[in-house]
């Protein structure tokens, strides 16, 4: 049953800073189904992390959600109370981060931190809680959990720290796991193990994962569906095969061409001219138009940023001149 778990519609988020208003997200929409790994891809600063934090409503004080809704299991998270949101966080939605070393509290042992999660979300007595913690640690492949429990985070390797984070997030059997660049801070050999682990959890537990990354290789290897973002816009959404094999959005196509492939050996690497626009005063209409070879007058109109148009029932692109066959 592939029914919808998360559906995000026309999300608009702005940040108010001394330097001016950063228009971080503009009209972002996409869905995540159960038992599915959805990859959210884009260059740094395109709004991937802001989107994830908006789902969990963990945005800093100077951010404001101006528009859009975030439906999770049919309920709109944006209208929930802080108390309800707190029960969700670490409950049915949990999150792991990029740099595991600094994401664990340095002055508490692993045991104290994991038991704390359970204490917040369940009324299990100490022995029951300890059992579930050890079980969860074993599930994420941590060797000799009892020894690790007594250690502090600085006494663990990067990979082990990330596994502890994973163990913590699985404690209360979440439906959705948000993973914000989980492997970028870890060396490559461990990276593959973590990604394999995510896939096992998806199949084993029916867990949905929102995987945020800037690495197309990780997407190809792990994700079922993909959404490519550019400067706060959702350029293209579709199955992994749709987007990677048959990209229609000019930016996505240029992005995929720029990835060094064996076939390009010896040739000059193609690149996208121009730079990522500053979000303090982004270009009107489609934000890619200044760098887009196919940009026309309509792309520049301020009030009409391109809406997602369906290429197939699962492949959408937000562009007035989609390319490809």
């Amino acid at each position: 049953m592939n029914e919808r778990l998360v559906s995000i519609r026309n999300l608009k988020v702005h940040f108010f800073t001394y330097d001016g208003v950063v228009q971080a997200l503009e009209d972002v929409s996409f869905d995540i189904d159960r038992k599915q790994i959805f990859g959210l891809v884009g260059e740094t600063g395109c709004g991937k992390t802001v989107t994830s934090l908006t789902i969990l409503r963990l945005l800093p004080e100077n951010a404001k959600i101006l528009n859009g809704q975030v439906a999770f299991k049919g309920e709109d998270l944006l209208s929930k109370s802080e108390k309800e949101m707190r029960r969700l966080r670490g409950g049915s939605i949990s999150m792991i981060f990029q740099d595991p070393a600094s994401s664990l509290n340095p002055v508490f042992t692993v045991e104290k931190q994991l038991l704390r999660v359970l204490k917040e979300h369940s009324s299990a007595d100490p022995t029951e809680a300890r059992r579930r913690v050890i079980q969860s640690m074993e599930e994420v492949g941590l060797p000799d959990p009892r020894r690790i429990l007594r250690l502090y985070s600085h006494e663990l390797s990067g990979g082990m720290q990330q596994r502890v984070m994973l163990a913590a997030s699985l404690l209360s059997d979440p439906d959705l796991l948000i993973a914000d660049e989980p492997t970028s801070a870890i060396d490559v050999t461990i990276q593959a193990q973590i990604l394999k682990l995510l896939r096992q959890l998806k199949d084993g537990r029916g867990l949905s994962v929102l995987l945020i990354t800037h690495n197309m290789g990780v997407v190809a290897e792990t994700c079922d569906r993909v959404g490519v973002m550019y400067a706060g816009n959702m350029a293209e959404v579709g199955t992994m095969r749709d987007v990677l094999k048959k990209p229609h959005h000019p930016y996505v196509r240029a992005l995929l061409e720029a990835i060094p492939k064996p076939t390009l050996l010896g040739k000059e690497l193609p690149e996208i001219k121009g730079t990522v626009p500053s979000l303090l005063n982004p270009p009107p209409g489609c934000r890619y138009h200044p760098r887009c070879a196919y940009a026309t007058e309509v792309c520049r109109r301020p009030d009409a940023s391109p809406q997602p148009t369906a290429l197939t029932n699962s492949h959408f692109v937000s562009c007035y001149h989609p390319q490809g066959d």
Partner: protein
Amino acid sequence: MAEHRISFLLLRKNPVSLFGLIVITAFVLTAALAPWVAPYPEQGRGVPNLEAMFAPPSFTHLFGADSLGRDIMSRIIMGSRISLMISLVVVVLAIGIGMPLGALAGYMGGMTDEVVMRVTDLFLAFPSLLLAMAIAAALGPSLTNSMIALAISWWPWYTRLVRGQSVSLRERPFVEAARATGVRDRNIILRHILPNSLSPVIVQATVDIGTVILAAASLSFLGLGAQQPTPEWGLMVSSGRVYIFEQWWISGFPGLAIFAVALAFNLVGDGLREALDPKVRRSRRA
């Protein structure tokens, strides 16, 4: 220098530091124009006026008169010149000694760094005001000696500050580049290291001027600083202490002046520190 324009902007936005800025300007102006601003400059300097002995605050003497009938407001105004002079001399001396030492230690590293920093640690491992008191007492109580004492116990703060700066600056590419192109160490320190460690020094100096005024007043209160009849604020509070119950204004107003000026410098220093701290600039409230 866009950075300083922004910090000034931030300073203006933060109302509390703005208040500090206004008080400081008033203080500096009063000090500069003291003889012309003071209603009775002669009494400010110390000439007694026995008719007005212990006169309470009134229109002729806004802050009242002291035990020799001298107008306290004029004494405070003339005293502002002394307080400003003390704090500027001490801070400039402290920077003059501390900054080059710090830059040298930070940049050179190795033995010089070890020696300079151990001596600095020795001074800093020790309440600086206690050291100042001991030196002032040893040299003999006078205004100049208290300034020397304060400068001797203040320079280590700048050495440590600038050393930290220059250690981090040393690795920066533009310094590496300068060294690579054969620029002599001395010039690197003068033209690169020192100017770049200026902004934290400015913040520290702003706060320090307030603290030095407080410290100098404390020394005078204990009789180690200015001598009669100099209108030094600490001395005025101390000599008014005997009359605190009947004639509270003799100690009251000079103490208020010390408090206001020290508060102003601390507020502006705080505002500057916050303004120059990059993390703060981005996360203002919605």
